[in-house]
């Protein structure tokens, strides 16, 4: 047994099975662009252990006792926030939640000032959701707490991508050579961006599909430079969905019509909605996923959302275990 393993076992053997965290090297979790396959697998393995905890009668282990986790949400969020808070509580961390839509932020305090205040209060881990791409990088650069990105602008949502990978793994065994189709508003999607990194690292073949006005300019060159041959960009839904192992429509915000990106929501639904007929083009076992919240009747038909192939609710459940794993790994990393 390696020393790291031994130490881990000594610390938490009463509450969790022995877990080796020797592979972990992240002080922050900002995106999955710098995660190796082994690291993602480590998160998966630890999430399995956490899922077991969540099935106990008392869903709590003392692992993060005495650690402070601050959730800073600059954007409304239901599931991600609840998921992180539940994850932190299940690990016995002290949690403070800062609703930035209501705090001194509205009085004009800068992000950096808010961060320094939270640092002064003694935060160990900050979980940040922000409407601007890159905001968690400011936290990571300027304060000593570890930062977990809970979604920044259009950029990244690593915990969502990890729970997506976790869910796919549970059902399909793995992602290697699986065809994963992400459909819709790729341009504004942090989920799509983080999944590009995470899923391809796990060996998946991806197709990103949407109307041309909702594909970010420069996407093909980005793929060519960073993930050549692993990701296709497509505008025809049928091609994207055909023989897919996973079909993931993205939320279509109705503002996209107002800002002129789409002629109408109606036409979007006609062209890109995942309904029973279109889903039948995918492999018979194909999973239907959605990062939520859904606009049923727009990007996904109610029948598909609740159908036999849908794992959408399970994604939410898995999210807690995956976020426990992230908090656990980041906290372990800090104490070493």
């Amino acid at each position, binding site marked *: 047994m390696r020393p790291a393993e031994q130490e881990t076992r000594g610390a938490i053997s009463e509450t969790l099975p022995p877990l080796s965290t020797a592979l972990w090297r992240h002080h922050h979790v*900002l995106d999955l662009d710098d995660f190796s396959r082994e690291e993602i697998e480590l998160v998966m393995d630890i999430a399995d252990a956490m899922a077991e905890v969540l099935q106990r009668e008392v869903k709590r282990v003392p692992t993060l006792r005495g650690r402070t986790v601050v959730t800073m949400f600059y954007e409304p969020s239901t599931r991600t926030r609840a998921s992180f808070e539940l994850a932190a509580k299940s690990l016995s961390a002290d949690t403070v939640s800062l609703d930035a839509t209501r705090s001194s932020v509205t009085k004009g305090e*800068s*992000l950096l000032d808010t961060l320094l205040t939270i640092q002064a209060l003694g935060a160990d881990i900050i979980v940040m959701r*922000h409407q601007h791409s890159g905001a968690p990088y400011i936290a*990571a650069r300027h304060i000593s707490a570890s930062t977990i990105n809970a979604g920044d*602008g259009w950029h990244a949502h690593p915990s969502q991508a990890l729970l997506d990978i976790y869910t796919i793994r549970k059902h399909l065994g793995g992602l290697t050579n699986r065809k994963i189709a992400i459909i819709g508003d790729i341009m504004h999607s942090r989920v799509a961006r983080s999944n590009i990194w995470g899923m391809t690292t796990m060996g998946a073949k991806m197709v990103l599909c949407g109307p041309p006005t909702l594909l970010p*300019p*420069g996407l093909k060159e*980005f793929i060519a430079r960073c993930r050549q041959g692993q990701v296709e960009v497509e505008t025809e839904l049928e091609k994207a969905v055909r023989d897919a192992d996973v079909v993931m429509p993205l939320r279509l915000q109705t503002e996209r019509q107002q800002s002129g990106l789409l002629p109408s929501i109606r036409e979007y639904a006609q062209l890109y909605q995942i309904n029973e007929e279109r889903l039948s083009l995918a492999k018979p076992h194909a999973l239907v996923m959605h990062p939520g919240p859904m606009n049923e009747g727009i990007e996904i038909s109610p029948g598909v959302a609740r159908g036999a192939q849908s794992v959408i609710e399970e994604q939410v459940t898995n999210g807690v275990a995956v976020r426990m794993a992230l908090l656990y790994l980041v906290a372990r990393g800090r104490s070493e």
Partner: protein
Amino acid sequence: MAKLLIRGGHIIDPSQGLDMTGDLLVKDGRVAALGSTGTRGDLAANDPDIVLDASGLTVCPGFIDLHCHLRQPGFEDAETIATGTLAAARGGFTTVCCMPNTEPPLDTRAAVDYVKQVADSEGYVRVLPIGCITKGRKGTELAEMDELASAGVVGFSDDGGPVASSRIMRLAMEYVSRLGLPIIDHCEDKSLSQDGVMNEGWVSARLGLKGIPAAAEETMVARDISLAALTSARLHIAHISTRGSVELVRSAKEKGVAVTAEVTPHHLLLTEERVMGINPDDNLSFYDVNAKANPPLRTKEDIAALIQGLRDGTIDAIATDHAPHTTVDKLCEFNIAAFGISGLETAFGCLMSLVHRGEMDLMMLISLLTCGPAKVIGTRYSGLGTLRPGCPADISIFDPSKEWVVDSRDFASKGKNTPFEGQLLRGKVLATISQGKIVYRDDALRMRMKRRA
């Protein structure tokens, strides 16, 4: 006024095609004479009050910056005329043209007079204000451009807030055509760039930032060229940044349209990838606000076209677009951080890398910083950008190979927003003489004063 002798320097003056080793005598704030050291008519015989030993150094006309932001009046926490012109002096600039996006904007004689007055009493180098095209830079009504001209502006611009209406732009060009002063346009179709914060391309796609396409600049360059052809006005394209714009200006010049263009050092040296930090493998440095500029940093291909444009004369001048900002305005989320780079003090050192890499020779670089911009300013302020005897003694002295590391804490500018922080540069300005007065001197440059009796 002190008699000053600059001795033994490598004198380069592109305005006269001059490239020699020799002495330069300054008297009464003007260039008095140039001569070879130790030959007949040695200038040392003139009994100078101050002798600067320029041996091993290059002596050239003081640089002219066609485009900078001095922030005064209105934004004195970001820069003042005093700090901005000292920054200019430290960068080798002896003339700076300041943009009118102050508060109040330079759209009245009173505002222009104020800038000139403060520059006279507190400035270190010559300040030539640029007046607004439209009242309040709102793009709807022409400013009183004739009065602004008589107050001494060298051109007109609504920089940062381009004139969206083609009709207003046409009227502005028609109106100023009799004044002989250029319309300087920040070419950007705001309806196309919208809330963009960086170049539109693979990096914006990767980082989830809204891009500004090259077309947002090029459509406006094309429009302005058409209007300049229509009105026979002089058009100057500010901070040109794309290959397409270079091609448009090149073909307009071939057709005889009176168009000139400038490019900034940062657009010549940095690409969009700089937004990911100095080392793109270090993810923690992503979203570097010091690489946020407007127009945005573009691509390798654009840089190649810009350099080609300088070589073939399509682009007439290099201008800094010095845009100092406070830390508060910069150190925030990338989307809301202010656009701009504090550039006066790094411009020359950065540009020398083009010479060291063999992209252009020193004569050409100096010409783009001196007689190039002087030509854009035109005849109204003649004698700028040259060392011809009788002209104002605006002189830069630099060591083309002295290495130094950029440290914004040493900047005279209040704006510490530089993407070149920590970078090793080769080429440093050691002294700047503005109208016969030494306004900046590095200790490395030896000076001897005449002993008073």
